[in-house]
């Protein structure tokens, strides 16, 4: 599977909580607002949970007002990886996932992941169109049927014709 191309140590399904350094980042972010934003961000950090399964990803947070977002990997339209200066110092990043909904901002912003780039590549591999060609239908023996294009079809028919002609000629040659 394509996942093996990634860093083999990285397993997105093991991610459930943001890294503790995210709290430090939140403290710094709330400095301009004289720490007014800190309580809210602190509760966000405490309650933030991620779930990566083989179908999709969900995140939920909130103490009084709870929020939960679920999406399937197949519906991802584009992935944004944003890291500002402070985030880079902490090794953090924001992975923004956008689906085809009408909102301007990303539908899901995954923060506080130290392995943001492997996570982004994991999501990319799960995304529609990132993996190989769609599988061709299998024939009776289980092998994929190779579907030729127009010229190949003609070639094939010509071959059949030649074969049949040779079979027809065989008894005459033997005589």
């Amino acid at each position, binding site marked *: 599977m394509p996942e093996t191309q990634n860093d083999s140590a990285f397993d997105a399904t093991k991610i459930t909580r943001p890294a503790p350094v995210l709290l430090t980042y939140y403290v710094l972010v709330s400095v301009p607002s004289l720490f007014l934003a800190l309580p809210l961000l602190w509760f966000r950090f405490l309650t933030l949970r991620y779930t990566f399964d083989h179908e999709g990803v969900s995140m939920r947070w909130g103490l009084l007002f709870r929020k939960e977002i679920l999406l399937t990997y197949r519906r991802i339209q584009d992935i944004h990886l*944003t890291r500002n200066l402070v985030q880079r110092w902490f090794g953090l990043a924001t992975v923004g996932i956008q*689906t085809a909904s009408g909102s301007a901002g990303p539908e899901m912003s995954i923060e506080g992941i130290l392995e943001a780039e492997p996570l982004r590549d994991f999501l*990319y591999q799960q995304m529609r*169109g990132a993996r190989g060609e769609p599988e061709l239908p299998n024939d009776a023996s289980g092998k994929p049927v190779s579907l030729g294009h127009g010229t190949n079809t003609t070639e094939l028919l010509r071959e059949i*014709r030649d074969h*049949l002609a040779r079979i027809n000629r065989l008894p*005459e040659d033997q005589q």
Partner: protein
Amino acid sequence: MNESIHAACTWCYEGVWSMLTNWFRVPRQPPTLPVADDTVVTSFRPSDNYLRYLKLFFWIGCVAVDIGLAILWIVIAVASPLVGVLITPLMLFVMIVPDIVAYVAIHLKFDTMWYVLSDRSMRIRRGIWVIHETTITFENIQNVRLTQGPIERYFGFANLVVETAGGGASAEGQSHGQPHQGIMVGLANASELRDCIMDKARQSQSAGLGDDRHDSGKKCMATGFTDVDVALLAEIRNQIVQLPLQNATGN
């Protein structure tokens, strides 16, 4: 003389770069895309003409601001020569330092822009303070826009905007983080790239809205027989018709 100045400038610029990469953690490597082994990944920057275009606007802005500051300075000096002399260092500082910073910033902006294309997807990186990377698969592309202004046409480059499904209020003024689109500015071969991307987008038979690829089965595979094929088929039919006869006479 000229070469030594150039070498000194290069040395200074390398210093700024190593500071950015070491302290500000600006990635030194171009972005990569995970791909299968046999596929090629091309990564490139905007064309050099885009840098010249940026510098043209830099010089226009530079001259305009400095002329304004010079006029201000002269007015002050005429009104009160003592103050005029006192603020001379300050004036020179304001006239020169921001220009150097802006000039370096243009080069940095150019050097931190990367476009990476594989056969399935594209990745765009831009930004110095906030580094933004956008990943879009060709299967999700809804449309490709090519834009070119008169000055951009003179410099021989164009901009390509690749859009995916979904919209929402586009935040004006926020040119980097536009949702649902990837912007590739300063492309010398924009129309070739547009054709290439559109070809890949066309190969996908789905609506590009995350629907299953099983929905888009190849239904029309058997049609498309030409007259030659039909004639061949007729010939095969005739051969088959003859088969038992030949066998009968052979026995």
